[in-house]
């Protein structure tokens, strides 16, 4: 097993774990962290893919994609956290409730 494969498998595993956090854990903050773990997993896969290039400098395109992805995920996280705080201030809830549709 090579270095790249190790990280690729780790990416696949972390993606599933993040998905678990997103789907199974009820707390909104856990869900947001789940999304972030999923993002990290995808970045791991991308950066490992970049590492295939022989020589010291890896493929720069996946790196640029990851940097873009990190910025996007920070932006989305910041917005989600603001939304969570607003929800908590308005209603005191920290989970998505079943009853919010038919108010």
């Amino acid at each position, binding site marked *: 097993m090579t270095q790249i494969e190790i990280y690729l498998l780790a990416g696949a595993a972390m993606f599933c774990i993040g998905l678990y956090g997103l789907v199974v854990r009820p707390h909104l903050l856990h869900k947001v962290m789940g999304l972030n773990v999923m993002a990290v997993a995808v970045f791991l896969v991308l950066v490992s893919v970049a590492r295939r290039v022989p020589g010291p*400098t890896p493929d720069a395109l996946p790196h640029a994609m990851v940097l873009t992805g990190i910025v996007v995920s920070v932006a989305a996280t910041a*917005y989600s956290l*603001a939304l969570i705080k607003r929800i908590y201030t308005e209603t005191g809830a920290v989970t998505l409730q079943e009853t919010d549709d038919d108010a």
Partner: protein
Amino acid sequence: MPNNIERPRRAQHIVAVGLLVAVFVLLARAVLYIPMHDTGVASSIQDNLQISGVLNPVTAVLLNFRGYDTLLEIAVLVLAIIGVLSLQREGMLASGRLAPFADPALSLLTRILVPMMILIAGYLLWAGEKAPGGAFQAGSILGAAGVLVTLSGHVRPGWLSPAIVKIIIAVGFVVFLVAAIIPMFFDKNLLEYPLHLAKPLIILIETWLTFSIGMILVTMFISSAAPITDDYVRGDAT
């Protein structure tokens, strides 16, 4: 009572874990079949690096080859801060909402670290041309400096009015956009920098982006950080 709740949840849980393990097996199979020979555009990037205006391949991809992605990415960042602000009630951008945390040691730390952070942000901005670094890294350090200033209870300088803050937030994106359309006046496509202008334009964009990103990050923190004090009164929601 707890048992009644516990049992179906445990069953759900096992099903979920089982499904995710199955997903993992599929993903693992997919990633292990990735061909290990170089199929990307790495060589193409290296070939064009000389005419990209910078020496760091990642920066070249971000700001030249795929500058369009970065332009939209900054739009996402601006959009996120607009979203955060739209979640605030009246008096958006009021940075005085954080209760200051008074402590002489923290104050001294802030006064030592903030100038250092500015210097290192500048350094990373400069280094980004040929080494790891660039606008986003520099901007996030400036943002952290702003967060530190906010947390340590230093007063926001008077000239930094909400209007100015908004302008700083938008300026990086607008400068990038202007720089992107400048080539169009010379009968070239969007973002098609003329060879001799590539480097100055990239530096111009990165510099403004640094300040914008820093301001966006710090505003994200300030605007979404809720007050701690007990006398918090709910403003009338729109």
